[in-house]
C-alpha cells in the first residue's frame, strides 16, 4: 500500500510550491482595531500538556502578542458534549465565540442557526490563499446553502488501523491485507494466547467500527437522498458477517464489549492486540505509551475493502471550527480563527503534534522528507487514496446512529444471534 506514496507526494509538492510562490502577506492588516475577549470551546485544555494542547497554547500566546487588546480564553469541554452544550448555550445567548465541532454534527448545529457565515468574516486574503490551500474534500462539507459555516482542522483519515510490524512479520507480512477476504484469516492467525488479532472499540459513541467496515463498499453505502445506510441490504449483511467471522475465529473477543477508544489504546500499549482500530491523530500518543512492544514497530493502514474495491478510508468524524452567530466579538474571533491556519501554525501542528498540516503548501518544507514525518506522509497518502470518502453532509439521527450501530456490533461479537436479525433491530431502533 506504500506504492502510491511517491506519486501523490510529488503532486502535493508541486501544489505546495505553487502556493508558496504567492506572496505571504501576513494577516496583521487590521490588528490595531481588535480588542475584547474571545472565548473558545474545545476539548483541549489550557492546562494540558499533550502535543495538541502545547501547540494551541503557543498559537494563543503569539496571537495575544500581536493583538495585545485581545484576550483569548479557552474553556474546555468533554469532547462528546461540545455540540450539545454549544447549542444549549447558543439558545440561551451565552455561546462562546469559537466552537470546535465534529463534522457529523455540523448540519444539526447549522440548522439551529448557531453558526456565523464565515464568508462575511474572514479576510479576503485568507479566502483567496488559505482556503484553496486546504484539503478540499473537507472544506466543501462546511458549506451550507452557499454559506461557509466552519473550517476543517487537522485533516486526518480519522479511524484507521494501527498495527505492529513485528507481529505481522511472524506470519510473513509487512502490512495487513487490504481485502476482508484475506484480512479475516490473517487476523485469526495473529490471535495467540492473550493477544487478539484485532481490537475495536464497541462502546464508544464517537466512532462506529461497523460504518468503517461498510465503507469498504465505497461512498454509495450512504443513500444520496437521505444520508441513511441501508442496514437490511446485502452490503450491511456482508459487513456484519465480517464481524461475525472475526469473532468466531477468535480475532475479535467478547472482552471488547464495552470497550472505549481509550481502553483499546491502553490495551494496545500492553501488547493485547496485533492490529486495532484507532484514531489516527493519536498515533504519537500510542507510540509514547507503548509498553509491551517497541514503539518503532507501530504502523498505520487503511481499512480492508470488499471485492476489488480500493482500500477504504473513511475521513471522519473530524474536527471543524466555527464562529458563533451570536458572538459579539466576531472580528477578533475571525482573526483568531485565521491564526489557527497560518502556514506557521500548520508547521507547528505537524512538527509538535504529528498532524497532517491544514495548509497543503507547507508539505514542501524539507521537514516532510525526513523520517520523522513519515507517519504524516502516510496519512497524507490515505487522505488522497482512491478509497477515501467522507460522511454525507447530513447524516440523519446522528446522535443515535453510533450508539445503535455499536450495540449491533456488540451483538455480532458477543452473541450468536442471526446477523440479519441484529441489523433489522438496529434499523427499526433508528426508525429508518
Amino acid at each position, binding site marked *: 500500500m506504500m506504492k502510491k506514496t511517491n506519486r501523490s507526494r510529488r503532486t502535493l509538492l508541486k501544489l505546495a510550491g505553487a502556493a508558496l510562490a504567492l506572496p505571504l502577506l501576513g494577516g496583521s492588516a487590521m490588528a490595531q482595531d481588535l480588542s475584547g475577549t474571545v472565548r473558545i470551546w474545545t476539548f483541549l*485544555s489550557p492546562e*494540558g500538556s*499533550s502535543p495538541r494542547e502545547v501547540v494551541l497554547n503557543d498559537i494563543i500566546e503569539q496571537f495575544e502578542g500581536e493583538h495585545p487588546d485581545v484576550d483569548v480564553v479557552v474553556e474546555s*469541554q*468533554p*469532547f462528546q458534549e461540545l455540540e450539545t452544550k454549544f447549542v444549549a448555550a447558543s439558545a440561551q*445567548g*451565552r455561546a462562546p465565540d469559537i466552537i470546535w465541532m465534529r463534522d457529523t454534527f455540523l448540519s444539526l448545529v447549522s440548522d439551529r442557526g448557531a453558526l456565523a457565515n464565515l464568508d462575511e468574516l474572514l479576510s479576503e486574503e485568507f479566502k483567496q490563499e488559505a482556503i484553496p490551500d486546504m484539503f478540499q474534500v473537507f472544506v466543501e462539507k462546511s458549506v451550507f446553502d452557499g454559506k461557509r459555516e466552519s473550517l476543517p482542522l487537522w485533516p486526518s483519515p480519522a479511524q484507521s488501523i494501527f498495527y505492529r510490524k513485528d507481529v505481522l512479520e511472524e506470519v510473513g507480512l509487512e502490512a495487513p491485507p487490504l481485502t476482508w477476504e484475506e484480512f479475516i484469516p490473517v487476523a485469526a492467525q495473529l490471535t495467540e494466547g492473550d493477544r487478539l488479532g484485532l481490537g475495536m472499540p464497541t462502546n464508544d459513541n464517537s466512532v462506529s467500527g461497523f460504518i468503517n467496515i461498510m465503507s469498504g463498499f465505497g461512498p454509495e453505502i450512504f443513500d444520496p437522498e437521505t444520508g441513511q445506510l441501508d442496514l437490511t441490504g446485502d452490503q450491511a449483511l456482508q459487513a456484519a458477517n465480517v464481524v461475525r467471522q472475526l469473532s468466531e475465529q477468535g480475532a475479535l473477543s467478547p472482552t471488547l464489549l464495552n470497550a472505549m477508544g481509550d*481502553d483499546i489504546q*491502553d490495551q494496545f500499549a500492553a501488547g493485547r492486540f496485533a492490529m486495532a482500530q484507532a484514531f489516527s491523530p493519536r498515533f504519537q500518543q500510542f507510540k509514547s505509551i507503548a509498553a509491551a512492544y517497541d514503539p518503532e514497530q507501530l504502523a498505520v493502514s487503511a481499512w480492508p475493502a470488499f471485492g476489488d474495491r480500493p482500500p477504504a478510508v473513511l475521513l471522519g468524524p473530524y474536527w471543524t471550527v466555527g464562529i458563533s452567530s451570536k458572538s459579539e466579538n466576531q472580528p477578533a474571533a475571525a482573526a483568531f480563527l485565521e491564526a489557527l491556519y497560518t502556514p506557521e501554525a500548520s508547521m507547528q501542528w505537524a512538527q509538535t503534534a504529528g498532524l497532517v498540516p491544514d495548509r497543503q503548501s507547507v508539505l514542501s518544507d524539507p521537514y516532510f522528507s525526513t523520517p520523522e514525518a513519515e507517519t504524516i506522509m502516510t496519512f497524507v497518502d490515505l487522505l488522497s487514496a482512491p478509497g477515501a470518502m467522507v460522511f454525507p453532509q447530513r447524516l440523519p439521527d446522528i446522535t443515535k446512529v453510533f450508539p445503535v450501530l455499536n450495540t449491533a456490533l456488540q451483538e455480532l461479537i458477543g452473541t450468536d444471534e442471526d446477523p440479519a436479525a441484529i441489523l433489522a433491530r438496529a434499523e427499526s431502533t433508528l426508525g429508518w
Partner: protein
Amino acid sequence: MMKLLGRLALASGGLLAAVLVLGPLAWALSTSLKPTNLIFAVPPELIPSAPSLDHYLRLIAEGVQWSFINSGSYAVSAVLIALLLGSIAGYALARFDMPAKPLVMLIFVGTMAVPSFAVLLPTQLMFVNLGLFNTWITLPLLYAAHVVPFAVWITRAHFASIPRELEQAALIDGYSRWEAVWKVVLPGAKPALLAAAAFGFLHSWNDYITATTMVDTPGLRTLPVALIFFQGFHGRDWGALMAGVVIATIPPVVMFLLFRRYLIGGFSDGSVKG
C-alpha cells in the same frame, strides 16, 4: 463453648465486613501514591514501596482544586439556604395553624420521596429557557431545593416534640417570641438541624448527574464532573483518577464521622417514631 464459637463467628464476620468496606478504599489510596510505572505491577504492591505525590500534583496542575472549591461552596451555600428556609417552615408547620396544611405536608414529603433525577430533563430545559442554566446560582439553588423537604420534615418533627410550655415560659419571662425561638426552641432542635446540614452536604457534594447536566463552563464545574472529564482524551490515568477518588472522598467522610450521631439519629429516630 457454643457461646465462644458464636463470639468468634461474630468477630470474624465483623472483621470481614470491615475489610470488604475499607479494603477498596485502601487500594485507591495505595494506587494514588504509586509512581505510574508501578501501578500495573504484577504482583501488585499493596503498600507502595516508593510513595510519591505526583498524581496529586498532577490534579493541581490541571486545576482540579478549583472544582474542589466549587463543590465545597455549592454544598455549603445549599445547606445554609435549605436550613434557613427548611427550619422556618418546619417551625411554622409544628406551631402554626395554616390553610391546607395536609397538602403542604404532602408536597414536602412527596418531593422528598421522588428523586430529583426523575425530573432532571425537564428541569434542564426549563432552566435553559429561564436563563438559569449554567450560572453560579444554578447548583446551589437546585441542591437547596433537593434538601429543603428533608430539612422541613426532620425539623418539624423535632420542633413538635419540644413542649409548647417551654416556649410559653420563656414568653412569660419577658422574652419576645423570636428570642424564645432563638434561645429555647432552636437549641432543642439542634440534632435535627445538624442532621439536615450533614445530609445536605453529602447530597450536594456527592452529586454528579445534576452537575454534569446543568452546568458547563469549567469555572463552575464540580469535583466529580472534573474527575470524569479526566477520564477521556488522555487515556485513563488511573493514578490521577484514584488521587481524585481520595480527595473527593475525604470531605464527605469527615463530615459523616463528625456528625454521624445526628445523621444516624436522624434516620433511625425518623423510622422508629415516624
